[in-house]
């Protein structure tokens, strides 16, 4: 029996992978099957997890969480309300009364909109502000070496960009190009050396300054009602740079777990189903 179920799972797995080549009847079959099965699954699960214990059982069987409740009692009415609101949703099946369904939607939309204010202010604004309002001096900086290195690289890249692209130096011939690169490298190295000297005193935390500048820059990028020029424009550009590094990091960070999933499926096919490997 286990082998039959495993084989069904394996064949469905292969059907989905066949989509990588192109759309085909096997994929269509698996797709329609999973849409139907999962829609049915959720209908059943939601009924037994919410409607049955919260409405059906208290209203009709007069039992709530295993305890008996009185017909017409406060708890009974409180269980009846979501039932009535739920029935209102079904007014859509009768176009003439469809508008009654809006009452239920009003409760639903309003309730969740209300949850989208105070906790959001706390978690997304105040907490983040607190975490980022760091001291930029007189604190330990475990990332100092990396920060200095990164800033050195930024100086090098910025110099190269300014000299070659903006000033058009070095576009003429190879020798000039190498010269410009050398100059930039020296500037970058010097920058790194100076920064290392500064951070070795342990007074200023460049890492924390970077954190603050990054956040201010990102916030500036999201200003909508002003033109991005001058100081705002500069900060917004810094913000975009930080955003892009952040997005790159998220991308690279996610690859690992996605590959793990693929390894899991391959292992299911080769090990659990075919027993090709031990």
């Amino acid at each position, binding site marked *: 029996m286990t082998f039959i179920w495993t084989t069904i799972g394996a064949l469905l797995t292969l059907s989905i992978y066949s989509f990588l080549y192109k759309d085909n009847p096997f994929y269509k079959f698996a797709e329609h099957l999973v849409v139907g099965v999962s829609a049915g699954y959720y209908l059943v699960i939601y009924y037994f997890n919410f409607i049955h214990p919260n409405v059906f059982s208290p209203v009709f069987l007069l039992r709530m969480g295993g305890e008996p409740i009185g017909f017409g009692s406060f708890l009974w009415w409180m269980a009846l309300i979501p039932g009535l609101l739920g029935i209102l949703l079904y007014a859509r099946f009768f176009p003439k009364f469809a508008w009654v369904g809006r009452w239920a939607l009003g409760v639903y939309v309003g309730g969740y909109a209300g949850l989208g204010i105070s906790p959001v202010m706390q978690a997304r604004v105040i907490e983040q502000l607190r975490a980022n309002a760091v001291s930029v001096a007189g604190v330990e900086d475990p990332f100092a070496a990396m920060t200095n290195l990164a800033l050195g690289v930024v100086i090098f890249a910025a110099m190269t960009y300014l000299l070659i692209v903006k000033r058009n130096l070095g576009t003429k011939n190879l020798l000039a190009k190498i010269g410009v690169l050398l100059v930039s490298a020296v500037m970058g190295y010097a920058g790194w050396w100076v920064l290392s000297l500064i951070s070795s005193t342990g007074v200023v935390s460049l890492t924390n300054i970077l954190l603050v500048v990054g956040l201010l820059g990102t916030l500036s990028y999201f200003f909508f009602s002003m033109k991005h020029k001058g100081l705002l424009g500069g900060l917004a550009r810094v913000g975009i740079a930080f955003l892009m590094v952040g997005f790159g990091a998220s991308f690279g960070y*996610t690859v690992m777990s996605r590959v793990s999933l693929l390894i899991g499926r391959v292992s299911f096919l080769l090990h659990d189903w075919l027993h090709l490997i031990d």
Partner: protein
Amino acid sequence: MMRRQIPLALCFIFGVFMTIQYFIPHHSVADMQERILMWLQTLLAFAFLLGTVSLIKLHYHKIRNRADDRAYSFVALAGLLTMIGLGFFHPSHNLPGSPFSQMFLNVQVPIEATMFSLLAFYIASAAFRAFRARTLEATLLLVAASIVMLGRVPIGDLIHEGLPQATRWILEVPNLASKRGVMIGVGLGMMSTALKIILGIERAWMGGGD
């Protein structure tokens, strides 16, 4: 009045209650808030019937109109009705080993896990296609992604021992600053949208008619 004012009023009342309950720990308010959350979840559970009817209608229409791939509509309907039948009319649907949970574990789970694992393929093709150093921004994205990708596998340690350290720096300095900026911005957008809903300024959700 009944058709537009009452839903707007309900939206306002529930919205304001849910906003201010956050500041009132008193058990009478806290109990009510928990109860309302239960109502909202139950309301969603009721809506699943709406969804299921929509799905059945769609495939019924396909079959009735003799659409080309109507055979698959039978598959979808069969899957749906099997689960509903096993769920509601077969005893012990939630026990391990019941046909309902077997269908879930051996049909739904493997297909979904496989769909999920397609990401490994798509992530590679997306990286190949889109990670081009066209602009400064694109280059930053590309470099950060490459360092983090290498810094997390053994081969990264072999290439350069500093890679894991650089990965941590990227994740905890520039990444963190930008994530916080996005979060704060998103928070403001959320609150403003929620507020406009509660105040009835944004009322697209009601649809039209009078």
